[in-house]
């Protein structure tokens, strides 16, 4: 065929599996993110609390160590939904800081350097792109959330025995589902901020601002209107309420419940996904 007749032809040879294509970006991103000194420091620091909790579990299961401390100590050392709820609260702070450092670098550079056409000209849809970027954060954030959470649950189950596990299996599923939901939410916030401002530095600030400002605004609405429903608009409170629901921990009567908060989180995530879908296009018209 003459050279001038060789126009554009779509590649129709064999392609790698869908999963392999999804994992290409995480592979490179994980290497880059874990190469950052601050991320490594944060990962190490975030392991202190799980280690303390592990010590607590050990102490709780060895009653001979706290004999003679009175009856109140048994209640204080109980390993139940409350214990895991506090553990999850603390770890979520580290996850948030990690997301604000690692998250914005995922999409902003692609948008700022007009790299999206290069991605989308390959067998990768917009949703694949979003999913693979989420996998990056899921991998990093699960190191400080799901992994230590499940290890603590496993430790307690192995020390306390099968009977404890039979009665408290829901704590394990609660930790897993709760943290997965949280990671999905903060990943969406980080990616949407990154796509919205296009600057990595500003996007990091936006992730923090999103959580802190919404929390402040919700409290402000509560105190000015003398209500409690606005707490549901605080993403941190909302996810906490969902965790409490999953871990069967009591929520104050006058505060929004787990279902209301789950609905708010779903709505919020939908909005963030819509923003991402709007911003992530292979072609952009610059006016």
């Amino acid at each position: 065929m003459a050279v001038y007749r060789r126009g554009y032809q779509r590649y129709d040879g064999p392609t790698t599996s869908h999963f392999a294509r999804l994992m290409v970006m995480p592979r490179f991103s994980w290497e880059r993110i874990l190469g950052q000194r601050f991320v490594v420091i944060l990962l190490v620091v975030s392991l202190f609390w799980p280690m303390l909790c592990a010590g607590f579990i050990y102490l709780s299961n060895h009653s001979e160590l706290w004999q003679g401390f009175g009856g109140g100590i048994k209640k204080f050392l109980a390993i139940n939904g409350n214990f895991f709820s506090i553990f999850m609260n603390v770890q979520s702070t580290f996850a948030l800081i990690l997301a604000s450092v690692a998250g914005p670098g995922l999409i902003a550079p692609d948008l700022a350097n007009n790299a999206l056409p290069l991605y989308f000209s390959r067998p990768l849809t917009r949703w694949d792109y979003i999913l693979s970027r989420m996998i990056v954060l899921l991998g990093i954030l699960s190191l400080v959330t799901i992994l230590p959470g499940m290890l603590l649950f496993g430790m307690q189950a192995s020390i306390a025995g099968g009977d404890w596990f039979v009665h408290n299996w829901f704590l394990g599923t609660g930790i897993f589902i709760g943290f997965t939901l949280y990671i999905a939410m903060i990943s969406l916030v980080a990616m949407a901020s990154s796509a919205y401002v296009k600057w990595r530095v500003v996007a990091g600030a936006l992730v923090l601002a999103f959580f802190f400002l919404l929390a402040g605004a919700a409290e402000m609405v509560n105190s000015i209107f003398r209500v409690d429903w606005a707490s549901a608009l605080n993403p941190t409170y909302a996810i906490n309420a969902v965790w409490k629901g999953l871990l069967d921990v009591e929520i104050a009567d006058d505060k929004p419940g787990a279902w209301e908060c789950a609905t708010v989180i779903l709505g919020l995530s939908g909005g963030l996904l819509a923003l991402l879908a709007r911003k992530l296009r292979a072609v952009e018209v610059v006016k």
Partner: protein
Amino acid sequence: MTPYQQIWTIARLELGRVFFSKRSFWVYILAIFPSIIFLGHALEAGLKKRNWSADRVTSAATLNQVQTGMTDDQVLALAGKPISDVTRKRRIRRDDEDPDAEKQPEVRRYVMYFDGKKRVDLRFEDGKLVARNTHELMNFEDDRRVYATMFQFFYLRLGIFFGCLGIFINLFRGEMLDRSLHFWFLAPVKREVLLLGKYLAGLIAASLIFGTGALLSFLAMALPHDPTEVAAFWQTIGPGHAFWYVAAAGLGCVGYGSVFLAAGLLLRNPILPAIVMLIWESINGFLPDVMQKLSVLHYLQSLCPVPVPLPNDMPAVLKMLLAPAAPSSIPVAVLGLLAVTALVLFAAMQSVKRLEINYGTE
């Protein structure tokens, strides 16, 4: 041209960018958000009063007869239809082998009445009245306390903090990301002059936006209250309070602005100092006295005219650990903040003199 004229020229050029850029939209929203909420509250209180006054007013004398220990049926028979009536049943929890769980009531009922001026909240547990609280629908003193809390916890700690982060980091780091900083460096001005010009632009914009926001929300807070009470307030302590709130907002911009401008120059990722500062300012009340004085917030809180009470729902352990330092006197607070700002700006000047542009690494 004298350096002062140069500073003003640079500030004038920058002001347009700071005031009218797309990103400033969010700063405006941050600044006027409290005013919108206070106006909403005024509207809501007016509507509630109108609705409740129409057909569901229970006389104060009748409500005074309601005593703790009465059953819900007795109260309803005595006081009639309430303005709100919510019943909640206790959930049976999986870990209810806890002996304390049995002591919890099975059913809680929350009933509200309105006597034309005050709302009376009644809480029944298992059919018995256990708590009774009275709230005035509009209480000026209460609202001033709410404003003080909002100002210290939302406006200073979050609104001005993030607003200044957005405005001041943009001044240098934003120009680097836009690859336009070299145009400024090609102009025949000293870099220190450029820095001061940009800082002045950011400061004017931030102070104007947040100062106006603070004043507007203060006015919106006072708007729905009894005109005689409000007039008396404005004739006595009102102008002083308004002035110090606006001054605290302005000085907040001075302090946070200098820190974020320097962070944008000294570090490639200014988010890290922002995180550190946010954490530092958040745990401020738990630190020893001397360390509390190393924060911008301590001086700003010292300027606020109304002290903020501790939240009722704060856990006892936190209340025990919390030890706010005694507020600094006004001259110390103002001079302290200005001294810190001067020091930070001096460090930023030293940094900008050595700054080499390398857009490739951004």
